[in-house]
C-alpha cells in the first residue's frame, strides 16, 4: 500500500479510516479497562458490600453508638475546620491577588506546602508540639488542657492538611476579575467591608464554592493526620475513617462498609457538584 501512494496516505479515506478507528477504539477500551479496574469496580464494590446484609443490617450499623459518635466527631471537626480555612483562604487570596511584593511566589508556595507534606508527618508535628512529651506539653498539663487525643488536635490536624484548598481556588479568580470594580466601589464611598461583600465576594463565589467542596471532602475523609493525633479511642476520638479502619481490622465488614457507603455518597455528591460547577461556570481546575 505504502509504495503506491506514500505522501497522500492521510487523504485516502478508504485506506486511512479503518486504521485510525482501530487505534481509537483500542485506546478507548484500554482506558475504560484501566479505570474500571482501579475506580469503577472498587466504587461498585462499596455499594454491593454495604447492601449485602440488607437494609436492616445497614440500619443496625447506622444506629450503633460508636458509628454515631464517629459521625458526630467527623461533622464537628469539619464544621470547625472548613469555616476557619475559608476565612484564611479568602484573606490569603485577598492579600496576594493583584499585588506585587518581594517573595510573592514564595508565599504562594508556602500556602501550598501542606499538600506536599505527608499527613502523618503533619500529625507528628502536632504531637511533638502539644503532646505530653512535646514543647507545650508541660504547660498544657499544668492548665489541664488536652489537645492531643482530643478534639482540638483532630481539628488542628484537619486544618493543616486542608489549608490550601480555598486560597488556591480563589486566588486565580481574584486575579482574573481584576481590581477595577473594587476601585469604582471605593470611589463611590463604599467601605472596604461593603466592597468585599457587595463586589468582591459575588465575583469569586463560584471559585469559593469549588474550593469549599474540595476542602469539605478532604476534611471529612482525612485519615493519616487524624490517626496520629486522635489516639483512636472508640466512641470518643474516633472519626469515621478511623471507625472504618478499626471495623475492618476486627473483620466487622457490615460496619466498615456501612460507614464506607456513607463516605462514598459524600464522594459522589462532591464529584457531581464539581462537575456541575466546571460545566456551568468558568471555574478553572487547578492542580498546582
Amino acid at each position, binding site marked *: 500500500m505504502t509504495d503506491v501512494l506514500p505522501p497522500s496516505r492521510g487523504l485516502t479515506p478508504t485506506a486511512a479510516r479503518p486504521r485510525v478507528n482501530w487505534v481509537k477504539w483500542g485506546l478507548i477500551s484500554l*482506558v475504560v479497562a484501566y479505570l474500571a479496574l482501579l475506580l469503577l469496580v*472498587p466504587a461498585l*464494590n462499596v455499594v454491593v458490600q454495604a447492601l449485602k446484609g440488607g437494609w436492616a443490617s445497614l440500619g443496625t450499623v447506622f444506629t450503633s453508638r460508636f458509628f454515631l459518635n464517629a459521625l458526630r466527631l467527623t461533622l464537628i471537626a469539619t464544621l470547625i475546620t472548613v469555616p476557619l480555612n475559608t476565612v484564611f483562604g479568602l484573606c490569603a487570596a485577598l492579600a496576594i491577588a493583584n499585588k506585587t511584593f518581594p517573595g510573592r511566589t514564595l508565599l504562594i508556595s508556602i500556602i501550598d506546602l501542606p499538600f506536599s507534606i505527608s499527613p*502523618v508527618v503533619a500529625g*507528628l508535628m502536632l504531637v511533638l*508540639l502539644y503532646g505530653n512529651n512535646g514543647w507545650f506539653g508541660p504547660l498544657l498539663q499544668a492548665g489541664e488542657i488536652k489537645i492531643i487525643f482530643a478534639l482540638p488536635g483532630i481539628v488542628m490536624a484537619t486544618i493543616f492538611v486542608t489549608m490550601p484548598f480555598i486560597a488556591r481556588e480563589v486566588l486565580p479568580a481574584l486575579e482574573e476579575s481584576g481590581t477595577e470594580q473594587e476601585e469604582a466601589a471605593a470611589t463611590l464611598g463604599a467601605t472596604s467591608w461593603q466592597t468585599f461583600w457587595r463586589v468582591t465576594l459575588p465575583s469569586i463565589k463560584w471559585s469559593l464554592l469549588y474550593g469549599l467542596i474540595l476542602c469539605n*471532602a478532604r476534611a471529612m475523609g482525612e*485519615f493519616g493526620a487524624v490517626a*496520629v493525633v486522635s489516639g483512636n479511642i472508640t466512641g470518643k476520638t474516633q472519626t469515621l475513617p478511623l471507625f472504618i479502619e478499626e471495623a475492618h481490622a476486627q473483620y466487622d465488614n457490615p460496619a466498615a462498609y456501612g460507614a464506607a457507603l456513607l463516605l462514598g455518597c459524600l464522594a459522589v455528591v462532591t464529584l457531581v457538584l*464539581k462537575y456541575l460547577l466546571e460545566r456551568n461556570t468558568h471555574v478553572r481546575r487547578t492542580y498546582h
Partner: protein
Amino acid sequence: MIPSPLQSLSWPWRITWVYLTFFLFIPMVALLLRALTLSPAEIWRIATDPVALSTYNVTFLTALAAGAINGVAGLITAWVLVRYEFPGKRFLDAVIDLPFALPTAVAGLTLSTIYSNNGWIGGLLAPYGIKVSFTRLGVLVAMIFISLPFVVRTVQPVLQEMEAEAEEAAWSLGASPWQTFWRVLLPPLMPAILTGVALGFSRAVGEYGSVVIIAGNIPFKDLIAPVLIIQRLEQFDYAGATVVGSVLLLISLLALLLINFLQSQGRRYL
C-alpha cells in the same frame, strides 16, 4: 520580604500570617528543632536503621513505580478524553477525580476486598500465584489509585491547547504514527507529564490511609515510612518518629522544588 506599609496593616495580610504561623510554621519548626536535639551520629544511626531503610525502599520505589505507570496511563487517558468522542466520555472524565473525592480509608477498604484472594479481581489473579492484598503489590495498587488523577489533569489542558495541525503536517510529510508520536506530540507534553508524575509521586510517598489498610505492614516486606512513624510513636520512640518524619519532610520539599522547576519549564513551551 518587606511588604509595603499599607499591606502590612491590612487585615487579610495579618490574618494570613497569624494563621500560617500558628498552623504551619510552628509545627514545622517543632519537628526540625526536635530533630536537632539529637546528635548527628544518632540521627544517622536512626535514619539508616535497617527497618527504616527498608521502609524508604518500599515507599519511594513503589511510589516511583506508581508514578511511572500513571505517567503512561495518564497520557493515554488524557489523549482519549481530549481527542476522541465516544458515549460515556463525560462520565469517565468526571470519574477521574474519584481518588480526590473518596476518603482514603474507603479506597483502602474496597481495594483490599477486591484484590484479596477471594475478591472480584484478586480471585482471578490467585490461580496464577499473584497475591495483591497484604503484599507490596497491594501497596502499589493503592498508590496508583490515589495518584491516578494527577497526570491526566496536568496533560489534559496542554493537549487541548495543542493544535492538531502539527500532527497533520507530520502525517502529510510521511511520518509514521509512531514517529509523529515521539517527535511531534511527546516533546511539548513532556513537562506536563513529568509535573503530573512528580505530583503523584509526592502524594503517594505521603499516603497513609489506603496503604495501611491494603498492606500487611510487615517490616522488610510492605511496611511504608508513614506507617513506621506511627508505629514508632505508639512505642513512645519519639526520636525514631522524628528522624523518619524529617527524612520524609525533606524528600517532600525536594519533590516540591522539582515540581516548581518542571512547571517553569512547562511555561516556556506555552
